[in-house]
């Protein structure tokens, strides 16, 4: 690949490289900022000018998972020496862990549960939306469905209203049928929300898979279902991965429904993190550590599927 370039093209290419670098800096700075703040001692989090070099500490994470109260007087030396490493970090910050009076157990801040809720709800709703979406898309792609275009438009139209508009009626319905503040309730909501997206994206991918592959499998002695399983699914893997990433990100980041439909049992991390900003003096390091942990799964998931994603986004652009 060494085609002849004019001088103008060379200059354009260099300018494009610079533009990409600038865009990268703009996009990555907030993420770097959150990651840095998550490991800062509290007194360095809000300095002006910002502190760039510091000794990282895990105390924001220790605080994130526990319920704390202000120390009225310095902690006794003996208690401090016997405390676990993370408890010492909290004492160092002038706070103490709230414990159950009878059992002496540490009281959780509730972040861990909410994080788990986020994982459960996002993973299950993604699996459901992608599997149902793939099968539906296959049906639309391969069979003559009466009113196909109308159905597809109807499916798409479910995404046209912003979630906040339907949130109140949904809230009333959920309360009436007892789905309020349940995992299953959120899973149903997110699956329904992502399903339309999954159907549309997967239809595009499946349309690109030549019918002859299945026809070959049909004459080779397989049923349509077997042909779908053995031929279409492996061929659609790229599309499935891309769709799954987008569905997962949507479910993982969803805020409005999670805020209204859940309060305690099934609450996910997005409504919890801002609730910690609260009033008065916020501990930004704790919020940053929560946000940092919240960013991790999406980053890991996307990184693992990056090859599929790249192919997925350029799929159909080049005819093989």
């Amino acid at each position, binding site marked *: 690949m060494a085609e002849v370039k004019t001088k103008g093209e060379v200059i354009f290419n260099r300018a494009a490289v610079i533009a990409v670098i600038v865009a990268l800096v703009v996009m990555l700075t907030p993420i770097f900022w959150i990651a840095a703040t998550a490991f800062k001692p509290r007194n360095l989090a809000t300095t002006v000018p910002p502190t760039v070099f510091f000794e990282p500490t895990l105390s924001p994470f220790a605080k994130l998972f526990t319920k704390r109260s202000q120390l009225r007087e310095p902690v006794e030396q003996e208690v401090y020496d016997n405390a676990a490493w993370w408890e010492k970090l909290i004492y160092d910050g002038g706070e103490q862990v709230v414990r159950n009076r009878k059992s002496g157990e540490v009281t959780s801040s509730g972040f861990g549960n909410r994080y788990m809720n986020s994982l459960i709800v996002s993973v299950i709703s993604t699996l459901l939306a992608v599997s149902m979406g793939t099968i539906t898309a296959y049906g639309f792609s391969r069979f003559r469905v009466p009113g196909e275009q109308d159905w597809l438009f109807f499916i798409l139209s479910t995404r046209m209203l912003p979630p906040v508009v339907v949130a109140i009626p949904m809230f009333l319905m959920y309360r009436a049928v007892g789905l309020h503040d349940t995992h299953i309730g959120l899973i149903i909501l997110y699956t329904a929300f992502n399903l339309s997206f999954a159907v549309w994206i997967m239809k595009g991918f499946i349309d690109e898979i030549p019918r002859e592959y299945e026809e070959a499998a049909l004459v*080779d002695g397989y049923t349509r279902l077997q042909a779908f399983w053995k031929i279409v699914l492996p061929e659609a893997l790229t599309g499935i991965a891309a769709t799954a990433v987008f569905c997962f990100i949507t479910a993982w980041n969803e805020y409005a429904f999670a805020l209204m439909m859940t309060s305690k049992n099934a609450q996910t991390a997005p409504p919890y993190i801002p609730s910690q900003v609260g009033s008065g003096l916020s501990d930004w390091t704790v919020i940053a550590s929560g946000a940092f942990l919240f960013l991790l799964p999406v980053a890991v998931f996307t990184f693992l599927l990056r090859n599929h994603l790249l192919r997925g986004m350029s799929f159909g652009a080049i005819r093989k």
Partner: protein
Amino acid sequence: MARIELRSIQKFFGAVQVLKDVNLTIEDGEFVVMLGQSGCGKTTTLRAIAGLETVSSGTISIDGREVQDLRAADRDIAFVFQSFSLYPHMTVYENIAFPLRAVGMSQDQREAAVREVAKVLGIERLLNRKPSALSGGDMQRVAIGRALVRRPKALLMDEPIGALDAKLREQMRAEIKRLHIARNSTSVYVTHDQIEAMSLADRIVVMHGGLLQQVGAPEEVYNRPANLFVAQFVGSPVMNVSGVAIEGGAGAAVLSFGQGAGIPVAGGHVGHIPGGKAVKLGIRPEAVLLRHEPGEGFVETTTTNVEPLGSHEIVDVRLGETTLRARVEPGFVADGQRVWVGLDPQRAHFFDGETGLALRRTA
């Protein structure tokens, strides 16, 4: 191996009728080529035999058993697609073994069967490759291997070598013929290429507009076309066709091309043609004879175009209101030169001017 019978097959796509009463019997071990332009219904017929397309009415039977309502999987037929359709996520070995896994054959038997067919096709060294790493010819060999490995009742091929370049096509054509002779499998082959049809077929089925135009051995289709469509579709360069008037009686007749240009022929050659009817003459370029000097049955004219084609040349000559194309030796004549043109009456075909049907000697 099997005998395939199509009885009164009709097929509609919406309001469009693509197959109009197709009747055809393919004998056990026969190699039948369905020849026609795109959209003539030949591929639809093939897909109907395979079970990839339902038929609107009529019956399809394989070895006496009606199969038109059976799924493709239950018909025990193999299909080779123009696009090869090798499963991209499987290796060549897995591709060929795929139909065997459907019938639950043991791994040892599978391995033996795949190796055997790979050996016949000369693709043993490719077994571990993915289809994307194969050349076009090898892809088609694998596709044929996948079709043959199961020893199906019949092998259906839909323009299997249409996507290859000219040289490879010729090579694969010979290979398909060799394989057919070796295995003697009932084969139905669809193509729009008349050279493929002529060289491969035991019998050619010429289709047009959803109807069978002629069914017969290649020589018969070439030498005795049933109608104008077949006459012009089979053969290269295309048969000359022009309206003629037949003047004269039983002894000696003249084929008149208008503007006073006429070629005399012995009356025996045109005696079977009913008078008072619009008639078209069809004559292949090799039966249009050119000479440098006058002779009996030859008329004077000039050449209007010469197309050199290497082994021979195609020369256009004006005769009355029509242009006839003649096939001659290279360098026989130059453009614009005076020549004498005649016809080989043995190889002249006459067609009804209205129906296009051949007017044959009843003898």
